[in-house]
């Protein structure tokens, strides 16, 4: 842990020196103190990346820009990456996933459309996810066409490939639900009963808004895709691409060497203990080009234990283990506004 704290301490120093906005926020909103624990680190609210251009590199070093999904350009987070940061995101993702599904590259069905990845310089969170996870695909197939309709030929070709070991499926949680599962009939089993590993994440908020539970999601996967799909969830955000939190076999998300998590009281931002629901502060060692290593999200979660405190997860993996339980309701009204519908 000390090693990690040291890493974050250096990131705090670095961004303090290279991003004037970060330095101002640190100076104006946070008590000046030595960074001894993770809790001492400043943090930026996630939505700040929608309101401002935040970067710790010069503009001519920008290699890629990631955008979150959003309905208008005003609503999208902008994450600026230089070559190094982009490369590190990929490397870390490979490392994290390999620990879960092994290092062998397999045939991969991407539960989305190729059109998400067509721009070279800018990507949505979905596009970034697809490109990131594509590293694991020796041969890639896309389940949806540009109109988000099922490409049955592609899927058939994917199923028929013969290989040792389970094949890989990847997609955004909400896209899998809305564009695939909801369109299939019960017990469709379109992938037959072969072995697959499905990794899904991102967009879970949409599902929680629709009151779809994890159990419902998994049940639909088994009935409509296939009974032998091993489902792995991950938690991540475009503001911290690459350092995702993977779900374990017992249904908990885990921290790893590239990330960490703190739970804070949503009313006064004090640190909460294990077992208490609060707002998630997500930490990533990867954010070097932009000051996104410590972010206060609007997601609610609960930490159950920490292997470093002799409270190890039943699955046997190290790190803190936690769940995301929901999100804070939308912010209240400003001024004389009738935002509840006209």
């Amino acid at each position, binding site marked *: 842990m000390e090693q990690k704290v040291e890493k974050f301490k250096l990131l705090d120093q670095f961004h303090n020196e290279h991003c004037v*906005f*970060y330095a*101002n*926020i640190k*100076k*104006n*909103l*946070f008590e000046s103190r030595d960074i001894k624990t993770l809790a001492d680190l400043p943090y*930026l*609210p996630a*939505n*700040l990346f929608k*309101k*401002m251009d935040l970067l710790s590199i010069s503009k001519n070093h920008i290699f890629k820009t990631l955008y979150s999904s959003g309905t208008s350009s005003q609503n999208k987070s902008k994450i600026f990456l230089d070559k190094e940061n982009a490369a590190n995101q990929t490397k870390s993702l490979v490392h994290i996933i390999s620990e879960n599904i092994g290092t062998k590259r397999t045939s991969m069905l991407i539960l989305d459309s190729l059109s998400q990845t067509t721009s070279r310089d800018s990507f949505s969170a979905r596009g970034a996810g697809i490109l990131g996870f594509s590293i694991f695909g020796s041969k890639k197939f896309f389940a949806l066409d540009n109109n988000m309709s099922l490409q049955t030929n592609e899927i058939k070709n994917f199923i028929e490939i013969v290989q040792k070991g389970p094949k890989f499926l990847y997609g955004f949680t909400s896209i899998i639900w809305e564009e695939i599962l909801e369109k299939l009939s019960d017990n469709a089993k379109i992938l037959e009963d072969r072995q697959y590993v499905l990794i899904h994440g991102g967009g879970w908020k949409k599902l929680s808004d629709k009151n779809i539970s994890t159990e419902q999601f998994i049940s639909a996967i088994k009935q409509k895709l296939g009974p032998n799909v091993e489902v792995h969830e991950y938690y991540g955000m475009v503001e911290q691409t690459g350092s995702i939190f993977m779900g374990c076999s017992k249904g908990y998300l885990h921290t790893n060497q590239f990330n960490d998590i703190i739970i804070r*009281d*949503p*009313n*006064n*931002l004090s640190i909460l203990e294990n077992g208490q629901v609060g*707002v998630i502060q997500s930490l990533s060692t990867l954010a070097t080009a932009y000051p996104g290593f410590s972010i*206060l999200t*609007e997601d609610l979660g609960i930490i159950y234990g920490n292997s470093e405190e002799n409270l190890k997860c039943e699955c046997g993996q190290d790190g803190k283990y936690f769940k995301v339980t929901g999100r*804070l*309701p939308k*912010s*209240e*009204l*400003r*001024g*004389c*506004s*009738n*935002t*509840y*519908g*006209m």
Partner: protein
Amino acid sequence: MFRTDIDIETILSHPPLEIFNDEVVRFLSNVSQRIKSHPDLRRFPDLASFGFFIREKNLKKLERFYKKENRWSMGIGAAFHIAPSNVPLNFAYSLVAALLCGNPSLVKLSTKIFEQSELLISLLNKELSEGQYKPFFTLLQYKHDHELNQKLSSECRLRLLWGGDETIELFKSLTVKANSTDITFPDRYSLSLIDAKTYNQITNPHLVSVKFYNDVYTFDQNACTSPRGVFWLGNYAEVSIAKNRFWASLRHVLREKKYTPNRGVAVRHIANTAKLAAHNHIENSDGFSDYAMQVYDIKDGNADLFSEHSGEGLFYQKDINTLGELKPFINEKCQTLSILMSEKTQILEWVVSSRISGIDRVCDIGNSSEFTLNWDGKDLFHLMTKRLAA
């Protein structure tokens, strides 16, 4: 959709009334009594205030006042009210103002549900059903209905558009009759100004805090009249003493009143303050903040600091030596300046002589949300009546 038993056509075809019509006054007085005697009243100080405003004695007082200079004024015609969703009982004040001026009304309520609004609506309905009135208003509640919005907009003589700016622009894009009038209440913000010397001499600072609390927290600081900033006039020593006492005292009142903010308030606050802090406009005020009361010092900036504000107990404060230093923080959107000064005329003179385009109202701390027919800088009585002769 309908919150009363009265249909739209009944109101649209209703003729205008005399000002302070007997039936209207009888109706409102009786509703006032119902409010006064309701067992749950203690929970809703804003409902109590409303009930107090429409009590017979006050209505008679207003009647005497307005009839004196306006012997031959009467209502104009049907009024369409678009109520805001930040102040629960705003719709009621809007309705009362229009009715007292003689205008039968259709009120489009916010779709947001507030307990005190629901209670008031039930009392209004009870009085309507038991009191035998020829109906002169109706309450509607619907989300998106372009056709209905268009119909009502084009058949009414008056529209009271309570904002925010986006809502007003939407309704203004609909067609209206050539002889109709819009009265708009766009996005506003308000400030407080405290003279440190005067404050330090007060024997009961607790009372000042209670008044400030009422101005701010009754509406979770979401009302246009709730101050978002506090400016301290005086020398360094006086101001330091005053600030410490004031915020400590307010914290005390918050505990007394057991005020609980909505969940997630700190997350919403930081979402608001981070950008301003990034631009070096504000910094944390040492030692003043509490979870329901976040205080920041203004380092530099202007009126824009106050335009995007999440409310719920967020304050930006600044020391000033002269009134002139207040000017950069005031623009057209600034509505109310609530003050604690030795006397008011100094400020009023300053606003006029400095030709300030903001500040439509100057009042004492504690009175900022008190409704009058002179509201948001508008003389509602004259806007909503026709004056046949002098």
